[in-house]
């Protein structure tokens, strides 16, 4: 079972991601709704992949991603950004934000799982 950390200040969203992903029986999901605590939570739970919201109060996704990248215990952990602010034109296959893959919200469960699996495969 793969461990997924989702960092998003929308508690309703993280709760539903947890419910739906865990329902598949393939994932364990840890929620973190405070961006400023994301790095500590990641260090504590050592996830296989991190889903990271970009626009958050206190500490945004870009800051959290940089911190994770510079931490030798986490630097190989795939990070996938979650963002609501992306236009149609920018959602082309293979597009990156700041060098990271991203998912545009809202996202279907199938598309989310596909993205998670692709990035987990890249790690291994």
């Amino acid at each position, binding site marked *: 079972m793969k461990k997924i950390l989702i960092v998003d200040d929308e508690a309703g969203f993280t709760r539903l991601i947890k419910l739906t992903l865990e329902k598949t029986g393939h994932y364990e999901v840890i929620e973190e709704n405070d961006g400023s605590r994301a790095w500590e939570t990641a260090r504590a739970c050592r996830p296989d992949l991190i889903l990271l919201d970009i626009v958050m109060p206190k500490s945004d996704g870009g800051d959290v991603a940089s911190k994770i990248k510079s931490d030798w215990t986490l630097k190989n952990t795939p990070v996938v950004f979650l963002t609501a602010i992306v236009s149609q034109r920018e959602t082309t296959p293979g597009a990156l934000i700041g060098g990271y893959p991203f998912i545009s919200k*809202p996202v*279907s469960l199938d598309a989310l799982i596909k993205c998670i699996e692709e990035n987990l495969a890249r790690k291994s």
Partner: protein
Amino acid sequence: MPSPDFPKNCRVLVAKDVAADPARLKQMLATVMESTTDHIYFKDTESRFVHINRALALFFGLKDPEDAVGKWDFDFFPREAAEQKFQDERHLMETGAPVIDKVEFQETPKGERRWVLTTKMPLRNFDGQIIGSFGSSRDITAIKQANADLSRSREELMEAMKELRSVQLQLIEAEKMKLVGRLAAGVAHEVKNPLAIVAMGMDYMRRQQFEDPNIAVIVQEITDAVKRADNVVRGLLDFSAPQRVVLEPSDVNGLIRQALILARGEFTGGKFEVVEELDPSLPLVRLDPMKMEQAFVNLFTNAAHAMKGGGTLLVRTSSRQLTGLGENVSTSGTFQVGDRLVVAEVLDTGHGLTEDAEGKVFEPFFTTKPTGKGTGLGLTVTKTIIDLHGGTIGIHNRPEGGVCVTITLKADAPL
């Protein structure tokens, strides 16, 4: 009598002194005649010179003003100009009507082209009979030149002001777009996050079993509604996205074919025919392939939506050289005579546009589609893309029904 206000060696004569001394008056008039740079002449009734001043003699290339006596303008000016002067004097002789401040263009005996200001008067004897004419002309070429320079400067100034105004409008537009961009980003964040929750919730429910079969229908309806709302917000972000283009020489025909593939999902629910009349010798155009592809996808999607139940989509390309203005293409600062243009036309057999809609189709959020079928941003985004490429886009109803959208772009290289 010397005036107390003048130096002692300067003599000033009052009028009655002059009148009493005709010789003195004649000398004074002769001085004026000979010292002025204006051309002064006297002619007989046959328009022959009886006297000219030194300035006119110099103009004619004569050493002595006496050499002009008995000669006509025909001896000094090109035939056409001399004929005009002769006719003016004929009229003056017959009617006594003077010619005052007539601006004439004339060529000097040395071949110089000058502007002159001419006045001609009838010369009468003591009985009032016309016995000839006299007149003067002043070279105003320098004034005309100064006027022309001033006029040119004014035009340049007007042009500069127009450009300044245009830049100002662009800056205002850019600032507006920046604000719209911020607004769009804010809307996207605040709307799409709740949408994400709803969408994920629907996904969860879709995987559950319910006794009531209506639940599945409701879940699908909510999912579709989320997609619609998401499309509106994405369109808004597209509309307000930073306007940058990455230009590269591109094949417009290839882009159209790719866009047709991307839009084919829209041509369902009826009998559709897609006809391609693409000019194989179309020159390359420097453009942003992704953005231009999006522009065509938007047009094809609109065409499909306008042809509810089926119809024919005709996509046509051609190229031509702009040989003059008024060639059914907007040339106001967009293209220049000599430019090679690539024209792409998208014609449908749909319901066409109402008179009201024709002027508004490119405005943001204007749509003729039913609620949920269009964001009202497709043509706005398309026009923005065409504008970014320095092209033009026009839309008009076809006489046989449907609309024709014409995109005109400048080809990469001239003929």
